[in-house]
């Protein structure tokens, strides 16, 4: 398996820069996920690594070798496409055999290797079937099988699960994760689905408008977003964001922050914002506690009961809406006044440029990260 290194990769298309300098070092056997809203350039970046798009500037290294101008097939990468892109007139066996046949591999070896892969993916009964006769999940598996038989150094996945229904997507997600563990392959995976990103990735790369917003482990991104974009993008329902001002800061760095309706003190590292500076207070829905003695008051507008949890859409006295996640047995219905407590250790503070202020306390799950 291989390392992949992106050095200031850029892609210009008709005078418009789509990828604006992406640098990233991917370790052997790492599972990297590119996420971002549609049009952020994540698929383009993947296609540049695959060799399907030219690289306008920068270097792409696989195993330390510059492969900018190497043909896709010679880069040792295999790709699974969103539409699967199976060859419709070839049966499953021929689909998987195609690259091996072009590479001039002897018949017996081809048969052997395809047999092995078909067994791993439970495709043995379908080797004679044409793609048109298979279900979505089976086609997906054939597409993965076609990538595996080539024994590539790097696997590339371009939104491979987006054409499947929700139940199958969950199942394939687990299969992909266990397949990755078994193959120990360096993998780059593009998705817009944060559940896929959070559950499968070793590290996530959040992209927006061709720029890397943050690179980190899933929990790093979730608990310590570097800026407002990542804070908004990761997590569902998204983080509550309230305009705020710095009221005071203590010598140890703790900021006294107030918004129109509440004030909290957030433990940040020293040398943060001046008193009176505008800021944004962020808190995830699950970090707001319903508490009869709570200092924050609000009125429930909508209550979404999801079974395991209940999402309360609460209007604060100044008219701002926030989402509170609480237990599935919550009985508050619309037009109920409630009191809440913001868990201060889980509050995020962003400066006027949208950058997060460094915290003085580490998240317990991120210790050592």
């Amino acid at each position, binding site marked *: 398996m291989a390392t992949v290194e992106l050095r200031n990769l850029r892609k210009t298309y008709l005078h418009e820069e789509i990828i604006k300098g992406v640098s990233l070092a991917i370790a052997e056997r790492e599972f990297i996920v590119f996420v971002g809203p549609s049009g952020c350039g994540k698929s383009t970046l993947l296609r540049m690594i*695959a*060799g*399907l798009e030219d690289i306008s500037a920068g270097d792409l290294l696989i195993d330390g070798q510059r492969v900018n101008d190497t043909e*896709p*097939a*010679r880069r040792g*990468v*295999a*790709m699974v*496409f*969103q*539409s699967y*892109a*199976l*060859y*419709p*007139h070839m049966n499953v066996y021929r689909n998987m055999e*195609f*690259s091996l046949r*072009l*590479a001039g591999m002897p018949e017996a070896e081809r048969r052997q290797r395809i047999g092995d892969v078909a067994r791993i993916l439970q495709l043995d009964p379908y080797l004679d079937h*044409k793609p*048109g006769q298979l279900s979505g999940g089976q086609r997906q598996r054939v597409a993965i099988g*076609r990538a595996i038989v*080539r024994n590539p150094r790097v696997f590339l996945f371009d939104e491979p699960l987006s054409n499947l229904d929700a139940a199958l997507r969950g199942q394939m997600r687990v299969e992909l994760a266990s397949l990755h563990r078994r193959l120990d392959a360096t993998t780059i995976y593009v998705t817009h689905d944060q559940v896929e990103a959070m559950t499968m990735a070793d590290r996530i790369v959040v992209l927006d408008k061709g720029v890397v917003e943050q690179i980190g482990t899933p929990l790093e991104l979730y608990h310590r977003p570097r800026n407002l974009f990542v804070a908004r993008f990761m997590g569902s329902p998204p983080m509550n964001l309230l305009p705020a001002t710095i009221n005071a800061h203590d010598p140890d760095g703790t900021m006294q922050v107030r918004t129109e309706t509440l004030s909290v003190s957030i433990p940040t590292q020293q040398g943060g914002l001046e008193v009176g500076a505008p800021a944004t207070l962020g808190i995830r829905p699950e970090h707001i506690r319903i508490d009869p003695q709570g200092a924050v008051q609000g009125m429930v507008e909508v209550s979404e009961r999801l079974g395991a949890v209940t999402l309360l859409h609460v209007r604060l006295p100044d008219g701002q809406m926030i989402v509170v996640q609480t237990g599935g047995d919550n009985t508050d219905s619309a037009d109920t006044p409630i009191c809440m407590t913001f868990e201060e250790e889980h509050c995020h503070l962003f400066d006027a440029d949208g950058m997060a202020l460094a915290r003085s306390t580490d998240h317990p799950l991120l210790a050592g990260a």
Partner: protein
Amino acid sequence: MDKVAVHPPVMDNPAGRAARGRHLQGFVLQSPAIMLLLLWSVVPLLMTLWYSLRNYNLVDPTQQGFAGINNYWYLLTDPDFMTSLENTAILVGGVLAISVGLGTLLAVLYNEAFAGRGIARVLVISPFFIMPTVAALLWKNLMLHPIYGVYSAMMRAVGLTPIDWLSRYPLATLVMIVAWEWLPFAVLILLTAIQSLDMEQKEAARMDGAGMVAQFINITLPHLSRAITVVIMIETIFLLTIFAEISVTTAGGPGVASTNLAFLIYSRALLQFDVGGASAGGVVAIVVANIVAAFLLRAVARNLET
């Protein structure tokens, strides 16, 4: 056996009667159109069959009466008949080979992005809008004429002697003219087919290590196979009955060198005024067309299955 209650079909329930009534009503309403179609196709067929068994020559009204199979016998033993069959096969095969072969390559070419593609596409399709007679005259007098022709001028410009194509190589020249007329049709159908090819398939093939040629053979050509079958079928139907081009350019000659079955029937009927012989030729043409159609339909049906 499991016990299954079997009800006898109830013949005269009101719903069934209503359905039969509607069925009958539908048939009555459709029948004028069906009758007209029947008249249109069956009456000429029966008349042709009838004439083909009779002595019937327009310039010799004394020769009348039943001829038995004599008309067929004279036709099938006439060396011109075998030549005309051969010529028909060469015309159909030659035009198909050129229009499908070149048409596929042109379709691939015109699918690529290049400056002026829109205009080029219109130009490549435009010969299809020229009626056969005009197209044949254009080629005969404007392009290939040994004295005035553009082509001859080009030959002379480089010091060569122009060739009188239509008298030296009549059949090959006809194949060329008809292929020129039908190439746009093939390009049009194949181009629309190629546009529906999933680009990710070609990209996947590229990742699998397929070069341009391997992509064409393994991805593009199988994708086009259905459209190619359709082109072959439609073109064959029309190419079996080429007439205007032959009539305008060579009139079947020199001798019978460029006479196909359709032109042979015409010459029997309207040059020799032998209605009986021409009708026999017509019946043979129907048989030939049906044999070809049977093969084609089977091929198409197999191709459209999956």
